């Protein structure tokens, strides 16, 4: 299951709050619920890491 993906969501939640989680969902088209259920595959991790990087750059 998406343990690493869910962890990324928690990290961005702590870092940027609800808005950050919302923006992450918008960029990845994947909610935190969906991330928990998804596989920690390389492509999923890259998708979420790229989105986090984009969010951090925008701050």
């Amino acid at each position: 299951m998406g343990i690493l993906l869910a962890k990324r969501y928690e990290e961005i939640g702590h870092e940027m709050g609800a808005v950050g989680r919302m923006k992450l969902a918008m960029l990845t088209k994947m909610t935190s619920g969906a991330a928990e259920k998804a596989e920690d595959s390389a492509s999923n991790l890259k998708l979420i890491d790229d989105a986090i990087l984009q969010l951090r750059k925008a701050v």
Partner: protein
Amino acid sequence: MRISTKLITITLGSAVLVTGLVTSLVVELKSVAIGYAHILQGPVQQAAEARRIQVNFLVQVQDWKDILLRGLNPEDLAKYTSQFHAQEAKVKADTRALANATDDGATRQSLNDFLADDEALSAKYEAAYDVYTTHNFDYKAADAIVRGMDRGPGEHLDNAVAELNAYAVSTAAAQRANSIRQLIILLAIVGGLFFVDSIVYCSVLFGVLKRLGQLKAVSDRLAVADIEGLRIDISGHDEIGAIGDSLKGVEAAIHELLAVHAH
């Protein structure tokens, strides 16, 4: 393929078709004009030439009668003899030229028959002329030698004129039938291409309209935050697919926001 690319391709295709149709019609029109010009310069002109030879042959016969009736003194005799021989030579030369020019076998045969009979008639005219000049202008004796002899060649000329007229009419009819056939083939090809073009255009148009309808339905639900059970299934590698993909992000964001608030 992007919608804009599809629309540009269809529009360019239609433009090429219209240009091709206009060009083909111009070429066809030119071909018809050339075909009729050939008929006018060929069989029609040759039929007119045959009628002219026919008249000249009658003038030649009349010139012979002038020799007999009016050539009673040396001066008039020389004048009418000269006219007769000039007319005789002109008829023969024009007939040979027409026989060489015509493509119609029957006409050529009639003209060659006329030339053969006219050669024999010329020999008779020479014999009659000798009788006329050596027997104290005895026109009755001279006329008896050639009387009625011009009917045979005259009939050959009549036949040639009739055959050339018929040949001109049949050639024009063949040209008309050929033009109509080519026009039908051209219109069938262009019509078929336009039909295919229309099918492709309608297919693209209805596809775009259907997916725009789906996009509007999703957009309407997102506008009122009605995301329960919302499933965005708008795919494709075009502009509508890209908008559908963006809406998936919006939907996920709303879900995430609701989940955060629920916690």
